[in-house]
């Protein structure tokens, strides 16, 4: 009963946003219902479509969690993108330099390097916050730009693949590839990692004492501190953990999908991650479900662009409207 009641605003928001977006689609001269059909069902029509959706789902879930974990403690990590990029860079560098190592050694090294790099990228704003009380929104976001320069440097430097037309490194060693769950269409084990992380985060925040302290810190840092919780440490921990998870999403892009470092691998993941996190209202359990929904929209949108010439940006409008309507439903419920 309560779950149904919680879902009602989402359903209304989705219907309302599709209706509103329909007006824009109609203005471009396309068939509105055909466009809807493409957006919603491309993911389920072919095995390839479904796998593509899952491949989107992985980084979206991880990026959204990289936002919700600090949000639970009342902090905003706007650096998921940069943390993903440095994670990808570290994973590729280790994967290329250690190309000759066997998989049992190389794969864990690749994963660890990426996760650690992401964590370090999260630790910088966290430490600045801890030590000097510098706003983490600003610092984490600015570090994204630093990561853009680093990836350019790495992808056009010594590890560059001279054959490729786009700034790209050479392939990482075979031993660094994530195992495949399905060969064709290719689906890598990153899916399992992402689901494990999502489940782990949920269990951590709801069942453990540490997770309780995280929730208490976010609910009222002053009261949490008065009752013995080291809130500054919780801030640091939450942002570092978020960085590690974002780093993992970079690892999966490199070791699971591309097998090399490509400039621009971050797509729109940061913004989408924030949107997913906010549509979920920071609820870690809801994140994977919302991420899956957004992945469907993303895949459907590119199909719509290919087959119907409706610009892919249309789907951003839908996503933005869903978020807007979900947030609006909060306002109405309070009335």
């Amino acid at each position, binding site marked *: 009963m309560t779950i149904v009641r919680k879902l009602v605003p989402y359903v209304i928001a989705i219907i309302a946003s599709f209706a509103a977006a329909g007006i824009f689609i109609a203005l471009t001269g396309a068939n509105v219902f055909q466009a809807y059909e493409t957006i919603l069902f491309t993911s389920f029509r072919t095995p390839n479509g479904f796998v593509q959706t899952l491949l989107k789902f992985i980084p979206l879930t991880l990026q959204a969690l990289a936002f919700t974990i600090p949000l639970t403690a009342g902090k905003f990590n706007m650096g998921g993108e940069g943390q993903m990029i440095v994670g990808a860079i570290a994973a590729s560098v280790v994967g290329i330099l250690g190309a000759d190592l066997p998989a049992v050694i190389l794969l864990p090294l690749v994963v660890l390097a990426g996760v650690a790099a992401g964590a370090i990228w999260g630790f910088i704003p966290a430490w600045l916050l801890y030590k000097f009380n510098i706003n983490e929104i600003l610092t984490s976001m600015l570090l994204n730009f630093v990561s853009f320069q680093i990836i350019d440097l790495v992808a056009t430097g010594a590890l560059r693949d001279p054959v490729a037309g786009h700034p790209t490194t050479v392939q990482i060693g075979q031993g660094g590839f994530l195992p495949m769950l399905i060969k064709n269409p290719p689906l890598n084990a990153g899916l399992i990692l992402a689901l494990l992380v999502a489940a782990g985060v949920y269990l951590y925040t709801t069942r453990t004492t540490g997770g309780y302290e995280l929730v208490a810190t976010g609910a009222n840092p002053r009261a949490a501190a008065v009752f*013995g919780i080291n809130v500054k440490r919780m801030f640091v921990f939450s942002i570092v953990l978020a960085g590690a998870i974002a780093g993992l999403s970079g690892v999966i892009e490199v070791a699971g999908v591309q097998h090399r470092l490509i400039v621009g691998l971050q797509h729109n993941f940061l913004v989408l991650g924030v949107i997913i996190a906010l549509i979920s209202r920071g609820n870690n359990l809801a994140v994977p479900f919302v991420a899956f929904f957004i992945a469907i929209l993303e895949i459907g949108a590119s199909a719509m662009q290919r087959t119907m010439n409706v610009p892919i940006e249309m789907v951003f409008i839908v996503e933005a409207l869903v978020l807007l309507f979900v947030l609006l439903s909060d306002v109405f419920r309070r009335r």
Partner: protein
Amino acid sequence: MEKEAILELRNIRKVFDKNVALDSVSFSLYPGEIHGLLGGNGAGKTTLMNVLYGLYRRDDGDINFHGQKLNIQGPKDAITHGIGMVHQHFLQIGSYTVLENIVLGTDVSHPVTMKLSAEAQKIIDLGNRFRLPVDPNAVVDTLPVGTRQKVEILKALYRGVEVLILDEPTTNLTPQEVDDLFESLRVIVNEGLSIVFITHKLREVLHVCDRITVLREGRNITSLTRAEASEEIFVRAMVGDQMKIEGSVYFSHGSMANTAVDESAIPALEMHDVGLKTKEGISRLAGLNFQIRQGELFGVAGVAGNGQRELAECVTGVVIPTEGKILMKGEDVTGVSVCELLKDWISYIPEDRLHDGFLPKANVAQNLILGYHRQKPYCEGSFIKWDTVYDKVRGYIGEYKIKTNGPEDPGGNLSGGNIQRVMIARAFSMNSHMMVAHNPTRGLDIPSMDFVYNKMLERKETGASTLLISEDLDELLLICDRIAVLYRGQIVGILDRKDFDKYAIGRLMSGIQAEETADLRAAS
């Protein structure tokens, strides 16, 4: 009374969401009377007056003023009709002078040059007439609470009100200031004005009011003149039938037997020259030296803002004193974290429940284990045993009468009084040698206050001590074994129960005689 009522409220009804705050309440006010509006917290006293003052819109009922129907849209309407209200929390601009605060929002004679000498003279005249002497050129921030209240009353009189509503005017006043206030009120009504006096303190009402209306749970129970009624009638009207008055601490006049404390045992708490300075070097606490014995209920009195909060936070370990040592049962606990102290040593009811003690975004269960979440039986290893927590929490909800839908109800749904019950339930839920309770009964109705007093007195039997810091002097006089008075961060006197004297404590609270007492202590 044969006189015509100047003001009549008939069958006023006010509903917040689903809560009926006022259920056809009627109230009448005669010219030249002080009318006490008595009731526990949540009885609807303030709501009723806010309806009259135009802060809330009534859902039903009539207001008649001078025999005419009145439709008040807002406080401005109320003031133009001659109804003024003094709120519990003053609405004053601290950096302005008394004069500027009073004329703010009124038409002045020289609006361009802001020459206010005529207005100043008017204020001085009003002050003399009503025995509310205030220097119009003093800056409000520099004035004591008692004087700031006079400013607030002058503000209403300056606007020419006929009816003055005072909401809990004696909170934070010393007994001397209370007497002054009552004298002024008498002068004001002798001039033909009428006063509504909102309070939960029975003794004050009996002392100063001509007629008394008792509200309980949003209904008016009775209206009587003072001469007509005995204290017992009002007590019964205030609390209803659910409460046994015979066994009550609240109505006991402080006559309950105090079990003797064991003076030979190691003191539960020893403060040695404890001082606290802010980063800027401003002294908040200085040279605190006192001991609390095992099983003792030790009170700290003082006007708010004299270091009470800092004292509570030093003892609980929330802040570390910059000077001195704190010992508990002989063990040095200076600098030990709250987290450690909450294991067996202390329990804490913070003063500012919303900021310092409550998680509005978390649920009731999460709120009730805050600080104890790493202790058994709530956790096992690094996991919280929510089943056990929920079981326990359901028990607390029943025992402490927390009005909520259950352990998973969001904290933000609770009312102020229920949040306070959560604070109390949490502090009493685990054993502690030393309880630090800062204004623990604020926002509670009388049966709940009584419940808290009983719980505190029970602690004495097990040898557990309590540090009760309260702005309510009556509360301290009622249950404490000793009372220390805090003034500007220093203890200016400690009185034994046999020496309790309201006025002596009041003098200490206002800093008078601080030196004399120091001499006395040195002499003894």
